[in-house]
């Protein structure tokens, strides 16, 4: 299977999409805020948007602005799954899948578990079913590249959880160069193991979820992943630690080196909460008032001042956390990462 390779420039409203990528058998997810150019990228690969310059290839050359090559969408072997699926409402599920199929579609319907829906028209389908039909329709063409635009965005929370796991398995089995875009980092890491962060048309970082977590390239990446970002001035101390004086005057210690204006990253799951500052190994204790409690399945997100901590529901229960009450947020100096200048 030939990889998808591209290098292109595509002007958007207030900035340009400028990107070079290679996607092989390992699916790649691009994460970014809305308006970062994600959908435009997919449309450019599919041939629905013409980049200003660049080239795209997947086995054969689809676009090469220098050589004047620009294949129309129907001649690019691409399966594009639209954000709201774009199923043909006047055709049955089977006819939708057959629309671009290169052969019989029975096997594709079977594989995606929609054989029973063959005669149904799309308006009568549920969100999860529509997505399977859209996938089946794209795959029936036997494309050499699969593109997914916000594959989970149009689904309700419950369906999302089911679709995540089945989609992850499916993508791995297909072994197709797959590029998916999403605004939700959690969706990206749930579906693939290679993630790129797209901000204002540029790729800021590309790596495994673990790489992004341990060494985010910019504060934006850290924020996207869900870390706490604090800003302050850093100075070296004699004991080898770095002291950061935060904007509100709080002093925080970090094992990372840094000086001057810095962004400090602390992940919510590395913060512990207690009623009083205890005698533990944490070097950092921040007194604050509980401002918000957000339950997430078996965990609770607790906002204490400018920090967000994540504790188990059981711990929150045991501590009797209530909005408006005082609490101490603690984290180790090793959990306080410095991201350099802002």
């Amino acid at each position, binding site marked *: 299977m030939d990889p998808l390779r591209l290098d292109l420039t595509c002007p958007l409203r207030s900035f340009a999409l400028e990107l070079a990528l290679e996607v092989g058998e390992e699916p790649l997810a691009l994460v970014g805020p*809305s*308006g*970062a150019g*994600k*959908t435009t990228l997919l*449309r450019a690969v*599919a*041939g*629905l948007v013409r980049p200003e310059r660049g080239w795209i290839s997947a086995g054969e050359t689809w676009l090469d602005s220098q050589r004047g090559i620009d294949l*129309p*969408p*129907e001649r*690019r072997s*691409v*399966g*594009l799954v*639209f*954000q*709201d*699926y*774009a*199923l*043909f*409402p*006047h055709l049955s599920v089977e006819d939708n899948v057959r*629309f*671009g199929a290169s052969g019989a579609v029975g096997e594709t319907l079977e594989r995606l578990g929609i054989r029973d829906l063959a005669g149904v*028209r*799309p*308006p*009568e389908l549920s969100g999860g079913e529509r997505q399977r039909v859209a996938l089946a*329709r*794209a795959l029936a*063409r036997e494309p050499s590249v699969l593109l997914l*635009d*916000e594959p989970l965005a*149009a689904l309700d929370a419950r369906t999302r959880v089911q679709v995540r796991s089945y989609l992850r398995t499916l993508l791995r089995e297909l072994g197709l160069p797959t590029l998916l875009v999403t*605004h939700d980092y959690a969706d990206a890491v749930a579906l693939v193991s290679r993630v790129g962060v797209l901000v204002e048309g540029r790729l800021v970082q590309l790596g495994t979820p673990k790489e992004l977590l341990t060494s985010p390239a910019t504060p934006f990446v850290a924020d996207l992943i869900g870390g706490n970002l604090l800003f302050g001035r850093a100075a070296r101390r004699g004991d080898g630690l770095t002291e950061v004086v935060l904007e509100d005057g709080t002093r925080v210690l970090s094992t990372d080196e840094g000086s001057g204006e810095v962004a400090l990253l602390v992940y919510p799951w590395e913060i512990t909460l207690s009623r009083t500052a205890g005698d533990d190994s944490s070097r950092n204790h921040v007194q604050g008032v509980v401002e918000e409690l957000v339950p997430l399945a078996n965990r609770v997100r607790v906002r204490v001042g400018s920090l967000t901590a994540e504790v188990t529901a059981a711990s929150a229960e045991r501590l009797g956390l209530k909005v408006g009450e005082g609490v101490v947020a603690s984290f180790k100096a090793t959990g306080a990462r410095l991201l350099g200048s802002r």
Partner: protein
Amino acid sequence: MRRAFDLSLAAAGAIVLAFLLLPLLALFLRVSPATLVHELGSKVARDALVVSLETSAIAHAFILALGTPAAYLLATRRFRGRDLVVSAIDLPLVLPPAVAGIALLAAFGSRGILGGTLSAFGLSVAFTQAAVVLAVIFVASPFYLRQGIAAFAAVDRDLLAASRTLGAGPFRTFRRVALPLAAPGLAVGSSLAFARGLGEFGATIMFAGSLQGQTQTLPLAIYAELDQDFDAAIAIGALLVLVSIAVLLAVKLLPSWTRSGSISPVPFAPSRSS
């Protein structure tokens, strides 16, 4: 006070309704149904019916064959001057029929700007059945074009894009996606244009004249029979009223019929991707 207001609303409504319906009812009340049927069998009425059906059918074929691609072009492509073109399409709708007639003469008449060219090929358009067809196309096509543009514009652009990524070229996308989805709207436009064309009078009488069996359509026959045989005129009028009612029902029923079916003009809740 409020009761008085409600009563005056009801009174106004009743007067308007009576004014609109009374003349139509009078057509059917003035002569007996037997006379209506008998008068429709007269030579004048039969000739006019044939001329009307022939010219309407030919004009309608042209309107559909040229209007459908034109509406698709105007609905899906952006180009300079597009807004101007769309506005110009509406012009025949508001033009006085007499102006339409004189304008067609000025263009295609023997002394018109294209008249010399046409007569060089031995063609004379004015006062022939071709003139009836041209007049009908001129006044009726905007009804189809307007509806057609709206119907094609209502087709989700992502569906057209999806069709392209599934290997269908522009023509197959038009035929298999745009056309079926716009069909209910096109059918409405087609009915309206047909009705307008069938009733065409002013431009036709100026540009094509009123020769029985040649250019005398049903509305022209009503006018011609007014002095000769009033009952025949009434009978033809009644026939046209029935056709109008049929078209009105078709226009009202078509969209609701397709909405309740599976072909929905708005497939899913619209949502835009980033």
